């Protein structure tokens, strides 16, 4: 899922400083799971903002809503009743949700309340870690289900670099060497032959190099 972190409170306060009546919009999708932008986080942030603003002598009205998702037009439509009655939207969805909200309500300032971090997993309660960089050309079938783009700090494709030591990466002794993980896993799967196969160069054109990416499925279009 897409992971995010709430922006520092001072930054949020600076972002909403010009406004006295806003909508605080959460999302029931990914950011609910990573505890950055769900219904509970909407309530907590709205309450904290109201306390801070009123204590500072400048009260603010906040309409609290949490959409099913902010990255789908039909759910964004549910915001329409509030779009004309408030000065701005503080969205605590991921960057995609914030942008789609802004596209959907052109006359309304849409402000980000969280920083979108990465595509990742919940390793344990309260701890999330990156697993995918959405490079667009998956090789997990060759690498034991461990991504060299994400798990290797240098995104190497042909084995570990000289900075791999005792299974750890040279950037941080707490970071596992992605290639050590891959080799260990291939061994356990009896697929070490995959490591010995020469791979062609990585097709980075499916990654971020070509500008904003798009998927078109004509069979699904109406």
């Amino acid at each position, binding site marked *: 899922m897409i992971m995010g972190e709430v922006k520092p409170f001072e930054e949020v306060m600076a972002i909403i400083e010009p406004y006295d009546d806003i909508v605080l919009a959460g999302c029931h999708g990914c950011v609910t799971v990573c505890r950055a932008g769900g219904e509970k986080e909407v309530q907590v942030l709205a*309450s904290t903002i109201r306390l801070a603003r009123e204590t500072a002598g400048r009260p603010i009205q906040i309409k609290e809503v949490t959409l099913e998702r902010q990255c789908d037009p039909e759910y964004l439509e549910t915001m329409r009743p509030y779009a004309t009655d408030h000065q701005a939207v503080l969205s605590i969805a991921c960057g995609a949700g914030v942008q789609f909200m802004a596209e959907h309500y052109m006359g309304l300032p849409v402000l980000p309340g969280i920083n979108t971090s990465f595509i990742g997993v919940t390793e344990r309660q309260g701890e999330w870690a990156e697993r995918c960089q959405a490079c667009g050309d998956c090789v997990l079938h060759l690498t034991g289900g461990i991504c060299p783009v994400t798990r290797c700090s240098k995104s190497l494709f042909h084995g570990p670099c000289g900075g791999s030591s005792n299974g750890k990466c040279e950037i941080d002794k707490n970071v596992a060497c992605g290639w050590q993980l891959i080799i260990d896993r291939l061994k356990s799967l009896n697929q070490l032959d995959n490591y010995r196969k020469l791979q062609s160069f990585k097709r980075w054109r499916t990654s971020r190099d070509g500008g904003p990416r798009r998927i078109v499925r004509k069979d699904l279009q109406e």
Partner: protein
Amino acid sequence: MVPCTGRVDEVMILKAFENGADGVMVVGCLEGDCHFVKGNLRAREKVRRAADLLAKAGLGEERARMYNLSAGEGAKFAAHVADMVEHVRGLGPSPINLVRAGAKASPTNVREG
């Protein structure tokens, strides 16, 4: 009252301050004695998070506190309440209440005529 302090969350504490509280005390069972294993430990963490938010909002983190006792310790409960009341008296009114009191006393709110 909630069946377990594990049900208490930051929103409840913050709302109490929005509604005019000068302090909030959360009283849970003794640590290590939770029927739901970790309810009171989670509550302590949530009270700590609420206190952090109160500090960021300018009300001061010391206005929210967690206490622990068993259900049979009536005298201890009374002592904790007295302690909290004394603590909050020492802090004085919540800054937001001072702002509200000032607004009420402001000449702009006095009707002329």
